[in-house]
């Protein structure tokens, strides 16, 4: 096993799938010679050429829409949206088209498209290079939404996403690209979509997270462990379909549930997790299902003082754990 940064794992996943399946193409802004603004596609253009690694015009709706058409005609496009913040021009193509093609055609057309996008804050990206967009897509039947937190999962889930016959939104927290590293097997492996994983076992409460927040949650859990609070940390990995079983099994065991995400709280994905738990694990709960999430600001401001005030930190999580544990 080799140690890989998060971004290296993604790059390898792309490369391996392109080698394995000649119908896989990559398209997006600057994915060619430059190799992507975060270098996720670095080296692919050199290896696979202009035909399969396409530098597109600066038009996100086109990136999504052309991917849909190409998929209808036998390809498996992996589209990159340069920043998740710029996915909104493609919303119509993703929600009205990609997500509904199989349904509206009664199963006669499919849409095997993967759309990758870096999301999340903490890198001085300001209002438009920091957003979390998962809630918009998680709500849409017909889509799958994947958010890995480790190098291993990033590669394994990406390969599954590319092979999946349905459209997958694959969100990568950009702060993890170089800060997260971990072991990745050299050979073929995949991680199935739709399965959460317990990253740390605990008895006192369940903490549900995904992406970067998993790392912060583990950090927080380690801090409070010294105080005798044993936190179980569940990494959702795929938020649609949600692995309700794993979530509920954990909460039924611990009796308490804290959901953490960086996106703003109101109508965020945490609401779904909380609502699920509140309904399905009601008899097991001995404390309120609690959400710790980004503030109700339209976006993340640039100035460090403001950005810091916005961000979720391990300290804030530890605080929320303590409060809930003490309930």
């Amino acid at each position, binding site marked *: 096993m080799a140690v890989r940064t998060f971004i290296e794992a993604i790059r390898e996943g792309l490369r391996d799938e392109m080698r394995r399946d*000649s*119908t896989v*193409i990559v398209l997006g802004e600057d994915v060619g010679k430059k190799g992507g603004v975060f270098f996720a596609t670095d080296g692919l253009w050199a290896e*696979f*050429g202009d*035909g*399969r690694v396409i530098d*597109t*015009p600066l*038009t996100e*709706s*086109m990136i*999504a*829409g*052309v*991917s*849909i*058409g*190409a*998929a*209808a*005609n*036998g*390809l498996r*496009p992996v589209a990159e949206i340069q920043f998740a913040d710029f996915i909104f*021009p493609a919303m*119509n*193509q993703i929600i*009205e*088209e990609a997500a*509904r*093609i*199989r*349904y*509206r*055609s*009664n*199963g*006669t*057309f*499919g849409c*095997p498209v993967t759309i990758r996008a870096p999301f999340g804050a903490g890198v001085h990206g300001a209002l438009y290079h920091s957003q979390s967009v998962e809630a918009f897509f998680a709500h849409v*039947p*017909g889509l*799958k939404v994947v958010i890995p937190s480790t190098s291993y999962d990033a590669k394994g889930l990406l390969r599954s996403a590319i092979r*999946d*016959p*349905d459209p997958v939104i694959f969100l990568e927290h950009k702060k993890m690209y170089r800060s997260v590293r971990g072991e990745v097997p050299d050979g073929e492996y995949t991680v199935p979509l739709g399965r959460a994983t317990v990253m740390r076992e605990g008895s006192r409460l369940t903490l549900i997270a995904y992406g970067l927040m998993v790392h912060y949650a583990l950090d927080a859990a380690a801090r409070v462990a010294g105080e005798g609070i044993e936190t179980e940390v569940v990494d959702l990995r795929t938020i649609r379909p949600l692995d309700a079983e794993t979530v509920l099994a954990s909460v039924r065991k611990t009796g308490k549930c804290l959901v953490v995400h960086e996106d703003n709280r109101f109508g965020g994905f945490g609401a779904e997790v909380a609502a699920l738990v509140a309904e399905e694990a009601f008899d097991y709960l001995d404390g309120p299902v609690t959400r710790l999430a980004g503030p109700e600001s339209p976006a993340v401001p640039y100035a460090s003082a403001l950005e810091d005030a916005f961000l979720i930190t391990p300290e804030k999580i530890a605080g929320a754990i303590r409060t809930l544990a003490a309930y």
Partner: protein
Amino acid sequence: MRVYSRGVTNSGVSAAPDPVARSGLSAARLREIYRLMALARALDERAWILNRSGRVHFVISAQGHEGAEAGICAALTPGRDWLLPYYRSLAAVLAFGMTPREVMLLQFGKADDPGSGGRQMPAHYGGAAYRIFSGSSPVGTQALHAAGIALAARLRGEAQVATVMMGEGAANQGDVHEALNFAGIHHLPMVLVVENNGYAISVPAEKQVAVRDVAIRAAGYSMPGVIVDGTDVLGCYLAMRDAVARALAGDGPTLIEAKVTRLTGHSSDDQQTKYRTEDDLAAGRGRDPLPAFRDELRAAGLLDAAAEAQIAAEVRGLVDDATDFAEAAADPDPATLLRHVYAEPGVPGAAPGPPGGAPG
């Protein structure tokens, strides 16, 4: 911008008025085109009767658009080429092989509707077996799908043309601009057919399009822009024949604007007298492609009374049969409501393109 009009051939010289000589199509093929138009018209008229008698909820009509579509599709090769239709593409989907029964199954929303199993509104065509890509309601989106389909064909080195149809109102959507730009950059085998009927529901062209001719925009994407008269079926055919040749030669896309007329209200929910003058409506009726093409064939001695009567009888029979068949067909089973949200094991759900092809 090129204009194909009666009396002008492909190569620009003055033509004999004879349709066979002008088009290079056989008399039999020309009668087939006429028959297709007549069938589309008859199916459409029947849908209105069904609607007004409360048997179907909704009709959106192709009347006035049949000439352009029939002419254009005559230059395409069903089975090889792809169609990305819109809700006025009835003649086109018939040309691509959809049967009157299938059209009526969609009109009634029945389980056996091949495109959607009764899930889509009438006129939202789709048919994997015919390479008719499933369409949605939000207009213009399918231009990008056409570009993607063309890109895949090109990558595999397969000769396929992706033809996408829409109204002039839809052509203003950002997606269409982005599709033309992408297709222009990559010289994709794609043809955009804009059926300009002068209205987007009630909004006249002057208020929706900043130019008189949408075709002029083609120059902004390095592709030919062509204007054809939608009552000149063979002009439409010739324009498309050139566009297809261009596409297959790797020279890239073409934008064809067909000037057509909308003979009905926008849909069964629309009362067009509220916003169109009687003069305007009368002018529209004067541009009905069906009698125009019939007269052209008659004048050239290609359609006699007997042939006409035979076609009329045949069409009536097909429409009656399709109506009865579809009306009697089974409704979708409510238990299927949640099928095909995601791929199901054993259901391929892939387009007919060779899935395992080796591009690059």
